[in-house]
Structures are given as structure tokens and as C-alpha cells.
């Protein structure tokens, strides 16, 4: 536990170094170098995280740095790989998007890099202080990214809404941490589970109130009901690569932190913070949030005419499914959430890559402008269709196996609450299939509009992104063996972490 062993946080050091270097390069106006530093930073950090994972694969235990404030285990490694992958895709996509924007290339990549640093750091936090700091680092970067198109009223409005509501959420989070600190006397997340029974009546209720407020803060981050009101507007207002990064990066970061907190206070282990009389209530709370998020996301999306707004609602729906995984409160449940996010990575980024390309040609996100894409550019239509079907959870794609694992974990829990949640999830799948197929219908069954552009040019990096996402979706859907093992390793590490 003791000792600095700074070497452990190698990926974070690399990223921080590149951020500084990029800042310096941007100050001198050499935009090209900012791009190089960004790419180098993310690649090196991901490689380092991967290496660390390989090296320490055997030892089940968790390694600590910064005197126990920074932990490294399979769970952290897996999520660092996920975040590394996400930001690589985002850098490629933003490269394509920035080519259409004249100013601010450097700032965009800097913000993205800093957000990635925040995500990397969030994976390894052990205490609430670093939780708060990493969370805020990510969020503030996204405030700026959301409002990046300064001269577009909608983007600025999105930014403002995000700032104010984000601030509100951070305030609640901070108050929650304060109460937890008051109840347990230390900022360690681990402390939650240790002291529960000897706190006496006042302390216990303080603890529960604190946990509730922390969950409110994190629920805002992953856009769970009732804190999801901001998502559709910000998704629609922000630029496409930012929305992609939001829907994947920030949501996954929210889930990482939520998983750590839930493991500590509700987790499967005997040492869970909230003992049985309270556990049932919290279980009901999580189930309620999962079901309502699921239904709200899917029902809201049924009427959307704008594709990005539709994806906003659908991301709420997917948060609901991941929450179902957390509801299961078992190793299988957490593994399902990890796998679900892996599959979600390739799916949602693939869809957004297509949106960026199509938007570049048609300058609009209305679903009607996608009609007849099947004839005009078949490859884009294919990737979009496969992406939407994977979002809907149709085999043989990754999305299906993610949902399958989630259902498996929930049904494994047993009990009336679990089965009814499973059936609500089933209804959600059907509703989601409806509005995804409405979009697919546009692509293939409608003729292209009179002024629709001919085949849309796909530059090399974007083609690589599209092929990787396509391959990722199929591989995660069919050859799921190794990835399931990875997810289970991460879940085992999370549950075992002391």
C-alpha cells in the first residue's frame, strides 16, 4: 500500500507529458505538432496500459501507487484499453470533421487529449478526492467540446445547458462525498464497506444519504433517468465527433466510477457497506432507475426525425441496459457491463463515423436525408445498418451478445423483481428494433431524394475506422470467447479489490 512507485502510473505520465508538449506546440502556433503529440500520446498510453496488463497478468492482486491513492488491476487495464481505443477512433474522426472547420484544430485535439487523461486516471482511482477530480476534468473538457462551434447558436446553447446542469450535478456529488467523509472519516472508497455496522444510527443514515447523492452525481454522468434531461439537447447541439466521444467516453467513465462505488457499498462481497435490511431498498432503487431509463430512452427515440437526437435517446436506453447489469450485483453482472461497453464502443463509433461522412455531404442530420443511401453509397449504408442492428441487439453482432450477457446476469439473480426487469428489457429490445429499422428502411427501401449527392467520398483514415468498427462488431458477436474471458477477469478483479 505504501510507497510512491510512480512507475505504475506510466500511461498517465505519458498522457500528461504529451498534453504539456501539445500546449507548448499550440502556443507556438505549430498545429501539426499538436496532432502528432495527440496521436503519439494516446497510442503510447494505450500501449503502456496493454503492456502493464500483460506483465502483471499472473498476479491476481492489485498494485498501488501514490500511497494507495492509485490502484492498478485487470479492471483498470481493461477500461484503459477501452478508453484508449475510443480516443484513437475519436482522433481519427475529428481529423475528418476538423478538415471542414477553419480554426481551432489545436484546441479540439488538446481538449480531447485532456479528457482521455481524465478517463485513464478515473480507471485507477481509489478514493473520492481523485474520483471527484478525474470526473471534473473529463466534464469540464466536455463543456468546452460541446460548445466548440462558437458561432453556432445551437452548439453554444448545448454548452450552456451542459455547464449549468453539470455544475448542479457536481455540487450534489461534492456534498455526497462530504457526507460520506463525515460518516466514515476517510476519503477512501474502501472505507465505505469497512465501517458500515459500527457507525450507529446517525452515521448510517448519513452514509446512506451520502451514497444517494454520489449516485445522483454519477447517474447524471451516465444519463440515467431522472437525470437524463440534458442528453438529447447536448447530443443534438454538439458537433458529431464530440457527440461520439460523449456517448462513448464520458458514459463509460461514468460507469467505471459507478461500478467502483456500487462495488464498495452494495457489491456482492460479504463486506458490502449496506447490509441486508438496506440492500433490498437499494436494489429496488437501482432496478427502478434501470427500468425507467430503459423505457424512457427507447420510447423517446420512437418519434425522432433527427438522427443524432435519436442516438441521444438510444444512448439513454443503453445506459438503462448497463444499469440492468449493475442491478444484478454479481461478478457475472459486472462482466456483462464491461462486455456491453466493449461492444457499444465499436457500434456507436461506427455509426457516428458514418454520420460525420454523410453530414459532410448533406449538411443535415435529418433521417429523411439518408433515404436511398443504400443505392448511392452502399458501403456507408452497410456500416450504418450493421451498427444500428448491433445497437438493437441482433445476432450475429456484438450488441446482441452484450445484451445476452446482461439478460443472463439478471435472470441468474432470480426473484420476481429480476424477472420483471428482464421482461421490461425484452420490451425495450422490441421497441428499439422498431425505430432502428425505421432508419434502415430509409436507407434501402426509399429512393434517394432529387438533390441527394451521388456517392459520398470516404477518405483513407475514415475507411480504416469503418472497417475496424465493422470487424469489431462481427468479431464481438461471433468469436466472443477471448473477450468474455477478458471481461470476466476485469469483473473478478473489481469484486476482489479490497
Amino acid at each position, binding site marked *: 500500500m505504501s510507497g510512491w512507485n510512480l512507475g505504475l502510473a506510466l500511461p498517465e505520465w505519458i498522457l500528461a507529458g504529451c498534453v504539456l508538449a501539445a500546449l507548448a506546440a499550440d502556443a507556438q502556433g505549430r498545429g501539426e505538432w499538436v496532432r502528432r503529440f495527440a496521436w503519439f500520446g494516446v497510442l503510447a498510453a494505450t500501449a503502456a496500459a496493454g503492456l502493464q496488463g500483460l506483465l502483471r497478468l499472473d498476479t491476481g492482486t492489485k498494485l498501488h501507487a501514490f500511497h494507495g491513492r492509485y490502484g492498478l488491476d485487470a479492471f483498470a487495464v481493461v477500461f484503459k484499453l477501452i478508453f484508449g481505443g475510443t480516443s484513437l477512433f475519436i482522433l481519427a474522426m475529428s481529423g475528418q470533421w476538423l478538415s471542414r472547420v477553419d480554426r481551432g484544430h489545436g484546441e479540439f485535439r488538446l481538449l480531447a487529449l485532456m479528457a482521455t487523461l481524465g478517463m485513464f486516471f478515473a480507471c485507477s482511482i481509489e478514493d473520492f478526492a481523485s474520483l471527484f477530480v478525474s470526473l471534473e476534468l473529463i466534464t469540464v473538457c466536455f463543456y468546452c467540446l460541446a460548445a466548440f462551434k462558437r458561432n453556432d447558436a445551437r452548439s453554444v446553447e448545448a454548452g450552456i445547458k451542459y455547464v449549468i446542469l453539470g455544475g448542479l450535478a457536481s455540487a450534489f456529488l461534492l456534498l455526497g462525498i462530504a457526507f460520506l467523509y463525515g460518516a466514515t472519516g476517510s476519503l477512501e472508497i474502501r472505507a465505505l464497506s469497512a465501517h458500515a455496522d459500527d457507525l450507529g*444510527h446517525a452515521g448510517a443514515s448519513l452514509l446512506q444519504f451520502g451514497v444517494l447523492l454520489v449516485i445522483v452525481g454519477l447517474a447524471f454522468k451516465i444519463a440515467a433517468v431522472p437525470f437524463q434531461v440534458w442528453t438529447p439537447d447536448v447530443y443534438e447541439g454538439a458537433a458529431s465527433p464530440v457527440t461520439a466521444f460523449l456517448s462513448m467516453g464520458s458514459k463509460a467513465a461514468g460507469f467505471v466510477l459507478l461500478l467502483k462505488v456500487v462495488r464498495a457499498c452494495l457489491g456482492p462481497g460479504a463486506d458490502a457497506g449496506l447490509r441486508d435490511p438496506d440492500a433490498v431498498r437499494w436494489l429496488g*432503487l437501482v432496478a427502478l432507475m434501470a427500468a425507467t431509463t430503459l423505457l424512457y430512452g427507447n420510447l423517446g427515440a420512437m418519434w425522432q426525425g433527427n438522427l443524432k437526437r435519436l442516438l441521444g435517446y438510444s444512448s439513454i436506453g443503453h445506459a438503462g441496459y448497463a444499469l440492468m447489469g449493475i442491478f444484478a450485483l454479481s461478478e457475472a453482472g459486472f462482466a456483462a457491463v464491461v462486455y456491453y461497453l466493449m461492444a457499444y464502443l465499436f457500434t456507436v463509433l461506427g455509426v457516428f463515423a458514418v454520420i460525420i461522412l454523410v453530414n459532410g455531404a448533406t449538411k443535415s442530420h435529418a433521417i429523411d436525408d439518408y433515404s436511398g443511401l443504400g443505392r448511392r453509397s452502399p458501403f456507408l449504408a452497410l456500416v450504418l445498418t450493421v451498427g444500428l442492428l448491433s445497437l438493437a441487439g441482433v445476432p450475429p453482432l456484438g450488441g446482441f451478445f452484450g445484451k445476452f450477457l446482461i439478460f443472463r446476469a439478471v435472470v441468474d439473480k432470480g426473484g420476481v423483481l429480476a424477472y420483471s426487469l428482464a421482461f421490461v428489457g425484452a420490451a425495450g429490445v422490441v421497441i428499439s428494433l422498431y425505430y432502428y429499422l425505421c432508419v434502415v428502411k430509409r436507407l434501402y427501401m426509399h429512393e434517394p431524394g432529387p438533390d441527394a449527392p451521388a456517392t459520398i467520398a470516404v477518405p483513407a483514415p475514415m475507411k480504416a475506422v469503418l472497417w475496424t468498427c465493422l470487424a469489431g462488431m462481427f468479431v464481438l458477436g461471433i468469436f466472443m470467447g477471448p473477450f468474455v474471458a477478458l471481461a470476466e477477469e476485469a469483473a473478478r478483479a473489481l469484486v476482489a479489490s479490497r
Partner: protein
Amino acid sequence: MTGFLAWLTLIAPLGAAVVLTILPGLRRSSLGPLVAVGSVLLCAATSLIFWMGGKSTDVESTWTWMDFATGAGRGIELGVLVDPLSKMMLLVVGWVGSAIFLFALGYMKGDPSIGRFFAKFALFVFSMLGIVLSTNFLMIFVFWELVGASSYLLIGYYVDKPSAVEAGKKAFLTNRVADFGFLLGILMIWNLTGSFHFGEIEAAVRAGKLSGADAGQLALASFLIFVGAMGKSAQIPFHVWLPDAMEGPTPVSALMHAATMVAAGVYMVIRVFFCFEPLGGADWGWAPGFVAWTGGFTAILAATIALVQRDIKKVLAYSTLSQLGYMVMALGAGAYSIAMFHLTTHAFFKGLLFLCAGSVIHGCHHEQDMFAMGGLRKKMPVTFWTFTAGMLALTGICPFAGFWSKDLILDALHAKHLAGLQLAATATAGLTALYMSRAWFLTFFGEYRGHAHPHESPKVMTLPLVFLAAMSVVIGVAGYFDWLFPVQGYLGKWTMQVLHVNASIAIVSTGVVLLGYGIAWAIYTRPTLDRAEAVRARFPAVYDLLWNKYYFDDFYLWLVRSVQQGIARVCRAFEENVIVKGLVGVPVGFTTWVADRSRRLQAGRLNFYAYVFVGGVTVLLLFLLAVGAR
């Protein structure tokens, strides 16, 4: 050896039909029809071999069609059973069939798709042989359906004549409705006796294992089986399809709707007679009584309708109905061997009459209305004399075949003290004489009223006529006196008791027949047919009733059009509104409503979002406090 021969007889016509359908080359060549005729001649030959072989050729060989335990270790089987009854029926099918096939060669010569016709004709013979040779109820049901289907194909042979297609469909559906009852009967019998095989069922019934309740059920089962027979043998409620079946070519009407197919029902009841008299004693339960009275009604009814028909084939069709009524009466009275004897004789002379009608129609270039013929005896002498022989046989004049078999039926009815039926039978004999002689006078006497120039039919058509005429003379005598064709004793277990023509009954029936001739002579030999018009004018109500065939057709049409279609329309309406709109519409509607409501939540105003956020926190707090407060 005989087993193989029996299987060969059965399979040969099927082989001909399959070969003709598969090889269009053969079908279009002149050789095609000969293949079909060859297969029927083979059947005639083997039937003769079986007949000559006597007891030694009785054989039963079975082939397991599907091996599911349906009782007593037997699966669902197809088999061949050759015993006295099936040998006799084979003779009828073989010989009458051959004659009609040869006739058809001539009759259908001009037809472009003659190959297709003979393929279907051979298919029919195969299905008929299947019924004759079947060993168990399921097999007889299988071929029952095949006969119905081949009659559909043959009646509807002239595809571009809408009336022919309609008649074919009517025949098929009426038979299918009757088969509904037949299958129910079979299943009930299987339920009672535990097996489908005839021999085993007879053993079970004979062994008297059936208690009181079962006997009642057996009576119901036998009634349902008789319903199947009514469908095929066109008894009262199911008779509407036979007259319309005349739309088919004449050889079809001759073979199917006179000689063999309609006789299948009678043959089947004879084959399973043990179901109809379970207790053997006087008390037969109500089934045989019902059978007898159905036969009686059909006989009388059909005879009256035949009086007013203008189409020569329609007259013969109703005459067939009437004669079938006779046979069914004999069945009801328990005289199975006599019914079989009448069936045989009827096959020959009714086949003859139909072929004569065919030859007349062929001669008058497809003119079928008797009132447009007349005076054909000079132009078509052979047809005239053979028609006369057939008529005499049908009406039952002494040396001819009809006399012996019909009078034996009258004796059987008398022996069973069924006075009412005997009276009806005698009246029918009179009416038969009336309408047959009417047809005779109208067609062959007086001047030719049509505008074609009739000519005698070629040799290939007249030869079968002569053969059948000879047979319809010889067969009656030979059968009665057990000379060549021992009817009474031959059928063994089917013979109730050996009967001899009772002189007094014979005299009465012959008198009635001669009376019929006299009336017809009086009305229909006038050159201007004015007297016929006068008779019709005097009884307009009766004429209309008879002309509309007692309104059976209209009743069925109403039944189908309003009742059945009505229900179908109600179901469709139910489908579209309740199921599509209700079962599916409601949940979809509810989901879209909720979706619309939740969309309103995004009002777009900042403060409202903050309200939702804070409201959410309070809701969660309340939930925690409310659910199981500490």
C-alpha cells in the same frame, strides 16, 4: 403367385397414368391411349383368371405403409385382398371398363389432348381397383379420396366450359363432405374394435365383445360409414352432384357414373356388412332400417325427376340414381348377395345405355337434347337395337338381366316383411319403364327433328355396344340359375338365404312395367308431340317441382352462398378489426402515446431541466425513505 398378380392388376393402371403424364411425347402420340387401354385389358384378363381359379386364388398380402401401433400389432397398411366378393367386382370393373375404354378410343378420336384424358381415366381405374382390393378401412378411405379426385379431374375435363369446372368442383366437395362422415365412422369403429383391418373387426363384432353401449355406438358408426357410401353412391342428400357430372365426356359418365364409381358405395357397405347387423338376430338396431328407407326414397324421387328430363344423359343419370336406390334397399333388407347381383347386371346394361347415348350424341354431332332427335332407328340400327336390349334389361322384362336381379330384390323385401318398401320398389319399376320408353320413343321413333345429319358410329364404338348387349342378356339368366355365374351360393357368407323368383311378385312387376310402356307409347309417339305438351300443361305445379329437382340444388346454393360465405365474411371482419386493430393495435397505440408524452418532457427551457433534476433527487430520496424505513 396370385398375390403378385393382384398387385400387378392394381399397379398397372397407375403405371399407365404416370407414364402418360411424365412423357409428353408418348402422350401426344397415338400410342398413348393404347397404353391405358392395355392396362385395363390386363385387369380384365386377371379378373378372369381369379374367377376361374375359384377358392385357390383367395389371397391377402399386405404392405406396411406407416408402422404406428394401431392395434393388434398392425401398423397403417395397404394391401390386396382377393376373395369371392372382390373377384366379382373385379369382373365388373375389368370387363365393363375394357368395353368403355375401347369405346372411348373412338369417341375421343378428334380431341387434341386425348393423352391427358386417358391418363386421368387410367388413374380412375387405379383408384377404383384400390377400393375393390382394399383390406382395411384406412386403405379404402385413401382410395375413396382418390376416386373423388379423379372424378373431379374427369368431370372438369373440358376446362374452358365453366359449367364443367363447376360440376367437377360440386362433385368433389359433395364427396368430400360425405367423406367427413365416413372418416368419423372409421375412427369410431377403430375406437370400438381397436383395429382397422376388416377381418379383425369382423372377428371382434362376431365375438360379441360389444356390450349394450357399444352396440349403440356401433350403430352410429355404421350410420356414419353409410353416409360415406351415400356420398359415393349419390343417395338422397348427397345426390345433387351426379346429374351435373354429365358435363364430363360420355365414356366418363358411362364408366364412373353408371358402372363402377357409384357402385363403390354399395360395394363398401357389402364389404363391411358385419357392422350393420351386429347382433345377427331380428333386432338390427336402427341403422339397417335407415339404409333401406334412404334407398327407397332415392329410388322413387329419382324416377319421378327422370320423367321430365330433356337431356338423354340426364335421364340415364337419374335412372342410375333410381337403380342405386334399389341396391341400397337390398342392403337395408340384408340381401347383400342380391344387391351385388343387381350391381353387376346394372353395371352392364347401364354402361350399355350410356354408350348408346354416347354413340347417338357422337352421331348427332354433340346434340344431347332428345327433343332435337327422333327417327334414328333407321340411320343408326346397331345403336338402336343395342339401346333396346339395354332398355329391356333395365326395365326388367323376363329374359333380360334386369328382370332377375330386380325381382330378387322385391322378393328379399317381401321376405323381410318390408311392405312399404316393396310397394315403392314396384312403383319405381313402373316409372322406370315410363321414362325409359319415353326416351326410347323420342330418340328413335318419329322424324328427325335436329338439323345435323346423323350417321352410324364406326366399328370400334359399335363393337363394345354389341358385347355389352350380349352380356346384359346372358348375365341375368346365368347368374340366377348358378350356371356360369353362380350368384347365390358363390358369395358364401354374404348370402342371407337363397331366394327364388316368386311367381306372383314377378307377374305384378311385369304388369306394371307394361303399363308404363303403354302410357309412354300413348304420349310420345304422336308426331307433333302435342300430347306431351298437353300433359305438361295439365299439371304445371308438379312439372315445375320435378324440373327443379325438388329444389335441392337451390337449397344447397343458398346454404353455401349465404350461410357459409356469411360466416367467412364475419370471420374476416373479426380478423381485421378485433385481431389486427385490437390485439395488436391497443398495445402499439399505448406505447406510441407514452412515447409522445415522454417526448414533451424535453421542453427545452433550462430552468425546467433543473426542476426535473432536483425533482429526480427528491423522488429517489422519498423512494428510499418510503421503502422499508429503518
